[in-house]
């Protein structure tokens, strides 16, 4: 769906919801529940947490939708709420230090040739077992990212927000988004490649 048409549909759904339509609410949930569930799962790593995040995000959204400003995109607003819910949940959970990923250290890993043997998604056989295994490798790698990098990677590369939108959702500068995203990608490349190497030599 084109972005502008998508926004118009959302504005229509919001207006219908404000007028008391339960069907509009249902459509909003249907449209965004998978992506917010994915975001919750990739941020927290647990299905139960992801469920809580989806639930709290929509509850907050419907509670405050009356005051929703038309110039904001619904999707961006929902993810802003979801990001806040994740951060709150993180603070309640075990202490998880927000360590820095050093570009220099990630660069040193770049030294040896052929180190990063990353499977090419488009060339993979359609073997379900392999796909499930690979999905788990990806999930584990993303969850092992330090939180501030994980947020940016999820919003930019998984959910497809652009740099400006991600900066707005996270309340950080566009330069920070770029820096964190680059380091997150390098970290994931190393994680996935090393798991893939282990698998091949097993």
């Amino acid at each position, binding site marked *: 769906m084109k972005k502008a048409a998508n926004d118009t549909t959302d504005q229509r759904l919001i207006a219908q919801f404000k007028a008391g339509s*339960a069907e509009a*609410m*249902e459509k909003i*949930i249907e449209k965004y*529940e*998978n*992506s917010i*569930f*994915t975001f919750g*799962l*990739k941020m927290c790593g647990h*299905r139960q947490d*992801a*469920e809580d995040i*989806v*639930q709290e995000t*929509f*509850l907050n959204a*419907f*509670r405050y939708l009356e005051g929703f400003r038309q110039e904001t995109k619904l999707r961006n607003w929902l993810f802003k709420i979801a990001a806040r819910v994740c951060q709150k949940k993180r603070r309640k959970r075990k202490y998880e230090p927000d360590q820095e990923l050093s*570009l220099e250290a990630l*660069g040193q890993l*770049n*030294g040896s*040739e*052929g180190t*990063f*043997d*990353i*499977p*090419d*998604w*488009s060339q993979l056989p359609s073997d379900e077992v392999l*796909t499930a295994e*690979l*999905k788990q490798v*990806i*999930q584990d*790698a*993303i969850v092992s990212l330090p939180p501030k990098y994980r947020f940016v*990677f999820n919003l930019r*590369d*998984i959910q497809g927000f652009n*740099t400006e939108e991600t900066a707005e959702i996270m309340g950080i500068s566009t330069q920070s988004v*770029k820096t964190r*995203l*680059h380091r997150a*990608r*390098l970290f*994931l*490349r190393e994680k*996935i*490649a090393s798991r893939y190497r282990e698998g091949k030599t097993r």
Partner: protein
Amino acid sequence: MKDACRRCFQKVSEYLDGELEREICEEVEAHLRECPQCSKCYDSLRKTIQLCREGAMEEIPQDVHRRLRSAILECLEKREG
């Protein structure tokens, strides 16, 4: 790492995202053409992003989908009632 490789390494994500200014973009492109090491780096990073993008999206499980609806309806009914 050579200076040109280091610069390319720092800019490769922005290059992949099409976010570099024209001059720097051309510089990175020229370097990638002549440096097999950096070209491999570019390729592996591109594959990593694609792999994560394709393999990450989840579908909400049916039971979660059902519980979500009842929780929201319950909450809204309480507010209205």
